[in-house]
């Protein structure tokens, strides 16, 4: 039998070269989705194969890797991906945001501000921000080519007409470097402002859809909005019940079946760091009150 033998960081060198070339073009054309010949990975499509391929193509033995899913290092898929790289690349791993040189994420941007020596790798399910308005690749590609984004504005405006607000709470579209409309992956819109003028390089990998895109450091990223309906990042208006943070994104924890709720930081590293530094929350259910924040 052909007993399997695998390369450093799993991918073969030819595949890494192909992905690396795509990453360079992605950085050179901020927000543009570069097609790449995504490989079949040993984990399912939709579970981070794009992010994993990008990480595998950039990761070296000097790197310190952090993997989060929903902001947490302890979610099962984050653990699974972290173990994959610890095993195939032997890299050091961490849960501390500021110690990491490469952070692979699904659905969140860490609360701790990123710095220049970091790369944030996003797992992306549907990279095309126009896909749900126009399912055809041939059409959306033409729209990007002509920077013809009227359809997106019509959609957002229809939301306002119907609900009084832009009814997009996550994967909220942004415009990168005043040219390409880009899908930030299904991060809550709370995280959108963190993408703007960020000191770290941001790379996006969509495995099943075979696209890589990037936001270089210090690049303008603007959430789409209207003058009379400006972008509002949502956050539940309460301090974290564990660390008392007033400005972190919160998970809602259902504590009983009688309407009991508590709100705690979704970024577990941030929350634990604050608690270790002596910050405390109420440890009790927060009052039911919320409004747009920021």
């Amino acid at each position, binding site marked *: 039998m052909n007993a399997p033998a695998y390369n450093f960081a799993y991918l073969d060198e030819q595949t890494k070269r192909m992905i690396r070339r795509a990453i*360079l073009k992605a950085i050179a054309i901020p927000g543009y989705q570069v097609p790449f010949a995504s490989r079949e990975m040993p984990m399912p499509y939709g579970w981070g194969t794009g992010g994993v391929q990008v990480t595998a193509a950039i990761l070296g033995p000097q790197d310190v890797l952090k993997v989060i899913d929903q902001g947490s290092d302890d979610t099962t898929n984050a653990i699974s991906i972290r173990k994959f790289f610890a095993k195939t690349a032997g890299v050091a791993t961490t849960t501390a945001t500021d110690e990491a040189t490469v952070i692979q994420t699904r659905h969140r941007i860490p609360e701790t501000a990123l710095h220049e020596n970091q790369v944030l790798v996003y797992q992306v399910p549907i990279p095309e921000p126009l896909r749900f308005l126009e399912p055809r690749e041939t059409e959306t590609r033409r729209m990007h080519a002509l920077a013809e984004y009227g359809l997106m504005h019509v959609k957002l405006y229809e939301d306002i007409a119907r609900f009084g607000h832009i009814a997009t709470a996550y994967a909220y579209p942004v415009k990168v470097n005043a040219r390409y409309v880009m899908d930030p992956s299904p991060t809550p819109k709370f995280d959108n402002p963190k993408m703007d003028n960020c000191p770290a390089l941001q790379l996006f990998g969509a495995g099943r859809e075979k696209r890589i895109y990037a936001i270089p450091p210090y690049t303008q990223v603007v959430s789409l909005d209207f003058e009379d309906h400006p972008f509002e990042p949502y956050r539940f208006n309460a301090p974290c019940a564990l660390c008392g943070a007033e400005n972190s994104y919160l998970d809602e924890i259902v504590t009983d079946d009688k309407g009991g709720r508590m709100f705690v930081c979704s970024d577990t590293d941030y929350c634990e760091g604050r608690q270790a530094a002596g910050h405390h929350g109420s440890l009790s259910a927060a009052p039911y009150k919320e409004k747009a924040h920021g």
Partner: protein
Amino acid sequence: MTTIAELPPGFADKVLSAQSTFRSVMDAMARPGSVQRIVPMAGAPGMMMRGTAAIALTLFDHDTPLWLDARMAESSDVLKWLKFHTGAPVVQDSSIASFALISDGGALPSLERFALGTSEYPDRSTTVIIQVDSLNSGRSFELRGPGIDGVASLEASIKPFDLFERLRFNEALFPRGIDVVLVADDAVVAIPRTTRVVSKGS
């Protein structure tokens, strides 16, 4: 005649050297104007600088048509080394090249002759690698654009002297355009198509 056994060697550790070189080039591309160092050592044939050789070993293969300037193309050592270590097909038509290697900047052809990509696929463009005299002394330049926190300054001795003036065509072409990688020995600076450069004189 150089035999294969006499060719300058590739990377001692293909996997880790390619990774390290790539990270330098990626950092250069992500932070235009910043000078990145290429650490891994590989042999370099003819007039090819060691930084260029490392980039070739890292990014070139059968899938990347390669255009060489006359001085490179005339060197059988360079041709043999590239064929043996990368397998990249050398093409005469610069408009289909994924990469171009320029050792004599003074004879850099008109940039329009390289692949500029299309509006639908702006990534299908040539990355032009130009060997220059110095990336730490010479004329000073002011750079702005994505990847740069405000303004970056670069002191470099570059041929052609009007390279940055010529690269201004990227502004009108965007998102099509040319991305440039400058190499001086083991130092690398990238000028992606989004970078705007102003010369500050001598």
